[in-house]
């Protein structure tokens, strides 16, 4: 087998919503175990880009290859790919009619067809990892936002994903709950899993990111390691953005 440590390879991707071009000529490579943080003003296409990674949206031109599988509408590999790529949403999107434990076991049981006992064992391991093993039998509505988001992270991990995508995971949270989620994400980063995060949490970005990506108006404007990105960004637009979100 050829040793290939590229996990995500995006090349010349365009994406349209009717007449509106959401992504323009986007190219990006993410290596195995790399932690990428994407930032940029709202409407710059950050979410659209990572939603294209697991086929929640489909790009119109260019190619996206994730762990050797090309993302394509209606392709057979798509469901396999989605099992390898976990996604954490801004709005958590836990299944409200299932308990926390069931939220975690339904994927492994129905998609990967493992036994209930095994799925529950796995679920409890990951609940432990996100520090809420005691909430297993509650329903999502009984949990705080921070706890729900941590459950959402555990739910993705239960599929034994190799890549985790975060779509503004802390934007819908009350300020006092942001840290408990970020802590879990920092711990997760140390396990060597490949992570792509869309977030405005620059403290988190500084702590874990290997690569910072700045997007604006559907284009990748700057890609740099965090030291350089935060101290000496090349583009004017990026400088301005950073000063806006850092200076207060």
């Amino acid at each position: 087998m050829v040793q290939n440590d590229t996990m995500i390879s995006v090349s010349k991707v365009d994406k349209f919503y009717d007449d509106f071009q959401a992504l323009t000529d986007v190219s990006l490579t993410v290596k195995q175990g790399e932690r990428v943080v994407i930032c940029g003003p709202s409407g710059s296409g950050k979410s659209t880009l990572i939603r294209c990674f697991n086929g929640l949206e489909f790009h119109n031109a260019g190619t996206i290859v994730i762990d050797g599988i090309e993302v394509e509408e209606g392709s057979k590999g798509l469901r396999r790919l989605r099992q390898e790529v976990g996604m954490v949403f801004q709005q958590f999107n836990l299944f409200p009619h299932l308990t926390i434990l069931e939220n975690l076991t339904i994927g492994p049981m129905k998609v990967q067809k493992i036994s209930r006992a095994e799925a529950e064992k796995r679920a409890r391991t990951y609940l432990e990892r996100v520090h809420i093993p005691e909430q297993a039998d509650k329903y999502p509505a009984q949990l705080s936002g921070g706890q729900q988001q941590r459950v959402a992270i555990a739910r993705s991990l239960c599929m034994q994903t190799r890549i985790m995508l975060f779509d503004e995971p802390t934007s819908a949270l009350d300020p006092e709950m942001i840290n408990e989620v970020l802590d879990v994400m920092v711990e997760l980063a140390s396990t060597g899993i490949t992570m792509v995060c869309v977030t405005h949490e620059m403290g988190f970005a500084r702590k874990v990111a290997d690569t910072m990506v700045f997007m604006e108006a559907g284009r990748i404007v700057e890609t740099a390691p965090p030291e350089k990105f935060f101290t000496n960004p090349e583009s004017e637009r990026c400088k301005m953005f950073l000063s806006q979100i850092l200076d207060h």
Partner: protein
Amino acid sequence: MRKLIKRLHWLDYVILAVIIGVASVIILRIGGALNYDWRWERIPNYMFRYKESEERWVANLLVQGLVATIRISIYASILALILGVILGIARCSANLTVRMLARTYLEFLRNVPPVVVIFIFFFFLSEQLIQALNMERWAREIARSDNNAVWTFLFGDMRRFPALISGIIVLALFESAFVGEIVRAGIQSVDKGQREAARSIGMSRWQEMRYIVLPQAMRKVMPPMANQFISLVKDSSLVSLISVPDLTFKTVELVASTRLIFEAWLTAAAFYFVICFGLSVLFRRLERR
């Protein structure tokens, strides 16, 4: 009770008095004008009668009809729910042909009066179906055989089985259009993020529908669904038009042979009321949980 009395305002008493006054005038007028000879004492005998030859009480016309109505309602509800869920899913399908077929079915059934649907179905389809399946003979054989207890329990007199089945199917078809719309509304009310979350853990479209969307949709549409099933019980009276021996059909028979016009119809009304009101109380309990 005391609480209720305390809550009443003096105006409430005036309104109540007026209503009682008007009602008694109307009842007295009807009583005088009709010159009707009430014979309520004969009604119980048409619910249950004592069969001398077997020395036991058996159901008579009214209760036979009531049981048939309950049977038809239960089977038609189940069938309507199954068809309705399929229809609701089809209405939300990504495939245009499927969506259009579902729409056509729905619009046809929704924009034609139920009585017309029942006749069309009965004369064109049900006759053909029953003949094609040789159902008449099959049912008669079961009726004649010795161990038909289970069949009789489930479907009543097996000689009337073909009519009963036609009634159930046509009622279910008719109601399924409305159930389908309720299910569609429920499916569409489930947050888009739920589908995305389901898809992002690798579920197929079918799994996403089965495990994530439908359970939430059905919970949300409990109240209108309950309403629809109560409507179904009432609409079941229409199948008497195609000689299904339900409560309405039996009441017509009873009136024709005994002239107990008011007593029989009021009794039938009471039976329907008890079923429907009972259902609405039951559903309200279920919702509260």
